[in-house]
């Protein structure tokens, strides 16, 4: 790291020396997320049955050692379907969340850095995107492009970027006043270098912390729309559509809908716990 880099000026990440207190809730959150993600990605290895193989003779069997989460109305193994479904949901949610984050952070940072008309236009577009109730916009997009993951992804990204753009912009505005950012100007760095090397590492943290909330929200929206039947189409399964498929049998075969829901809830709790650990340790340290 050459001193000419200006690295000496810039606290690379605001508070690199900040010690993070590892709270038990963060560890629990990480454990939950790790187990679910691992199981989901090892679905082809772990799953005892192929997810879409019908076995009518075994339909609506309650949970047992043979079928951990029971079977559904055509005898498909719910546990296997949940594993594959979780994989599908996690991949989609992570992709759309972080595509939105990338777009939003770049746009917001540039807008905050330069200000002026670009900032004004970005600001108004972001305001508008945020004003739309999320699900309503996604449904409107689905009305145009037809049911499926694509519509949901477009819709979520179309709103998601705006949240990060706002966040990154306001962070950028306060960073701009800090001495190390002023120094990049004095040293005659290109804007590109000032933004990418010096501003971004400092503001990305806030956005990443926020993204833990966003992942949960997006997961719920995705699952909700799949449940409504406009997401993943049959026979492919994600958690939302498995829950929907079990709804008619909820009295006789409660497990079909309940089990995938529990996985969703657990995953959401895990991610939230991680996010909370972030914000809390940040808060406690910065207020001392």
């Amino acid at each position, binding site marked *: 790291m050459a001193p000419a880099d200006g690295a000496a000026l810039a606290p690379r990440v605001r508070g690199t020396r900040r010690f993070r207190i590892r709270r038990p809730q963060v560890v629990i959150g990480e454990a939950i997320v790790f187990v679910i993600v691992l199981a989901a990605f090892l679905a082809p290895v772990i799953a005892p049955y192929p997810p879409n193989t019908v076995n009518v003779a075994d339909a609506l069997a309650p949970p047992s050692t043979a079928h951990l989460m029971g079977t559904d109305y055509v005898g498909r193994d719910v546990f296997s379907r949940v594993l594959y479904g979780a994989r599908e949901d996690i991949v989609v949610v992570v992709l759309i969340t972080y595509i939105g984050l990338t777009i939003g952070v770049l746009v917001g940072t540039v807008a905050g850095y330069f200000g002026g008309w670009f900032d004004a236009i970005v600001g108004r577009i972001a305001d508008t995107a945020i004003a*739309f109730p999320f699900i309503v916009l996604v*449904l409107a997009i689905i*009305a145009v492009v037809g049911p499926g993951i694509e519509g949901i992804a477009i819709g979520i990204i179309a709103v998601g970027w705006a949240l990060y753009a706002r966040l990154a912009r306001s962070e950028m505005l306060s960073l701009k006043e800090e001495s190390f950012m002023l120094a990049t100007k004095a040293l005659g760095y290109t804007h590109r270098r000032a933004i990418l090397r010096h501003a971004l590492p400092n503001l990305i943290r806030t956005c990443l912390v926020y993204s833990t909330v966003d992942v949960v929200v997006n997961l719920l929206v995705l*699952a*909700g729309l799949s449940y*409504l039947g406009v997401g993943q189409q049959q026979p492919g399964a994600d958690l939302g559509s498995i829950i929907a498929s079990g709804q008619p049998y909820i009295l006789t075969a409660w497990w079909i809908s309940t089990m995938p829901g529990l996985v969703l809830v657990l*995953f959401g709790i895990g991610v939230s716990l991680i996010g909370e650990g972030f914000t809390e340790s940040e808060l406690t340290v910065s207020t001392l």
Partner: protein
Amino acid sequence: MLNYFARRAGIAVVQLLGLALVAFALIHLVPGNPVRTMLGARATPEQVAAATRRLGLDRPLVDQFGSFVWGLLSGNPGQSITFAQPIASLISERILPSFLLICYGLVVAIVVGTPLAVFSAVRPGGAFDHGTRLFTTVAFAMPTFWLGLVLALLFGLKLHWLPVAGYTSGFVGAIRSLTLPGVVLGLSLLVIVVRTLRTSMRKVLTAEFVEAERARGFSTFRIVTRHVMRSAVMPTITVLAVNVGFLIGGTVVLEQVFQIPGVGSLLFLAVEHRDYPVVETIAVMAGAVVVVLSLLADLAQALMDPRVRLGARTV
């Protein structure tokens, strides 16, 4: 003050126009022919052309946008394709259950959330604070449709306390049929109420004037109810107003789960049947509700908080 009002209202108008533009662009500028998608693959070119003319889609785009906006403003946004009814009457028939459901959810979130936030703010880091945090985290991670199903199973199908689906008009009927979805909706919003109120209460509670009031011998109860809440409630209301969008999204899903004939289920039907005029109208309406409410919240805050002065807040 007036200056601030005007500026804030100006932003809202731009947002409203933006909403209309986005909704319009979605249907009219997206590649592919919406009329063809609507009529299906087997429609003849003549049928497509006739439908296009009937919907006014052959006119210049600026013209179409103009009449779209005018239709919204004049309260007559045109005719539904699938239902063969004016959109205005379709929506007005179904607005009441949706409105009541949103109110129910808000009331649940506020009534449950306020005490949770207050007690956890007074003793930060205490057992109650941790318990509340855990509870709201779980409530937040709960998918509304799934929680709705589980509650319906429990209170409707097993205990027979409440109806599982449908909507009965009249006071008692509405309350009974909206209780399950209302509680679910409220729980999903709970985390926002509790976090915002707790945070702004913490901020006020650590202010020096609170210490000065303790020095005067005031009880914690008096300090919290008479002084802290005054300052802490407004930011929470603003945040709630912005999150009405979240509630509206929740009702769309919950109306499906509980088969409530509201605007949300109308939107869903319209999406299924590709009834573009209805989709456009509902989308703009829902956005407009959010825009107008957050405008009102900001103005109310400016009026109520003696410190907010000219341009002190940007939106």
